[in-house]
């Protein structure tokens, strides 16, 4: 395993899954995907990830249940649940459990990456600017998240 952050993305919307995968790959993550909750749990059983990004409303095992099962496998797992605010009861359950982060769809990528950087904060991280600063809009900070053993620092 190299110094890339490993992310597992689970969503039943294939286009969403694919575009997230493309984005995170381009942002330097090692990406694996799952199309439902069960598959996400199975993947987690075989490998460890630095972060799991999962939709709340998925067929079969929903995001909250999958999150619970993943925590059984790895109590330290960092899980971010995505919600379209569809199922109020499920969302309440997710909030009550409080063992994962919740982001609203449509997800703002920069904020998501910041959240990942913060959530994975107890793991040593180095967050640095992307090589080419001028390629992005002024207001946004481009962050590449990389694992580093000694320290966690952020340079803008």
């Amino acid at each position, binding site marked *: 395993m190299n110094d890339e952050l490993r992310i597992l993305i689970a969503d039943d*919307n294939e*286009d*969403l899954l694919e*575009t*997230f995968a*493309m*984005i995170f790959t*381009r942002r330097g993550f090692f990406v694996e995907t799952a199309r439902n909750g069960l598959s996400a749990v199975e993947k987690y059983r075989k490998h460890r990830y630095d972060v799991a990004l999962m939709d709340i*409303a998925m067929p079969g095992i929903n995001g909250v249940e999958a999150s619970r099962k993943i925590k059984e496998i790895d109590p330290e797992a960092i899980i971010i649940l*995505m919600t*379209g*605010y*569809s*199922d*109020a009861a499920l969302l309440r359950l997710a909030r009550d459990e409080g063992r994962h982060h919740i982001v609203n*769809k*449509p*997800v*703002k*990528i920069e904020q998501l990456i910041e959240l990942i950087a913060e959530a994975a904060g107890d793991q040593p991280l180095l967050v640095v600017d992307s090589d*080419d600063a*001028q*390629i*992005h*809009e002024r207001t946004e900070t481009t962050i590449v998240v990389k694992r580093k053993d000694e320290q966690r620092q952020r340079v803008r």
Partner: protein
Amino acid sequence: MGVRFYKKRPDEDSRPAETGAEMKCLYEIGRAAGENRNVEEFIAKATGLVREAMPSPPQSAVRITLRGRVYESPGFQAYAYHIAEELASGGETIGRVEIYSGQDGLCLKEGNYPVKALAGTIGSAVRRIELEQVQEKLIRAERLAAVGELASGVGHELRNPLNVIRNCAYLLKMTLSEKNDAEAIKTVAVLDKQVDAANRIITDLLDFTRITPPSPVRVDLKTLINECLNWITVPSQVNVRANLNGVAPIRTDPEQISRVFTNIISNALQAMNTRGGELDIETGEDAGYTWIRFRDTGCGIATANLERIFEPLFTTKHKGIGLGLAISRRLVEENGGRIEVESREGEGATFTVRLPLEKRS
């Protein structure tokens, strides 16, 4: 009505009871109950009708007490002679009817039949109106709930494609940035901004349909209305005059009620947007209620639409989804009040919100 509680003169002894006026009065009350959708208006009207049915209306007065609230006929005086009867609805005593007369010879016999019949008619009319209100409220709540369900379903279905669009825009931006194509990057930024705009509509729809029970606190209406006015941008061609003095604080949910006020004010401003005009906001107290009146000089509401403006998804605007007033009415009712509108097309509109002065038991 010719209530026969007068002592009969000797020459009247053999005459049949004067039932014509009584029947007419009972009929009129029944009709008033059918025409009035709220109990307060009906009772106010009934006091007048009963008084008119008396042998000498100028020397008569009527007082109806309903669940502690008192309604009196115009120019009420407690004349020397009077009779009272309990008002009952569904077997429960809900108040009383009192008839006063200044005429001599009033016989205040307990159990006087016409007064009993009158009280019975008023009692059952109140029950009917209240049942209708409950039913209407349920229907409206159901309709809103259906809209809410639809909104939440559609919202979720839309948020996934919106997220895909956002992701695609992000990927495009990354690629375009490498090629240093500033114009294309700008175009992609517009795409992203519109995703936000679309998402805001979904959020509004969801927020509007999720109504939580009110959390009443002591609220100063003047402060609340001024806060609402601070939130809203008033166009230069509109003049807002607020006369908000002299009402005591009430117990209500400030967040919900300010949503109502903001909605009414925004509507008024939109109605005056092209021609300009004036918005008068006044407050006052009356019969157990605090009222807040918003009177604008805008385009007004067509008579045919007056009944419908409080229905969910009804709108005559180019923008908006038609939930503002539907939600406003529900919020006001949840807080124990009611909302009324008076308007004619081309002549402005007046919205009055009534909120109870004290928390109802």
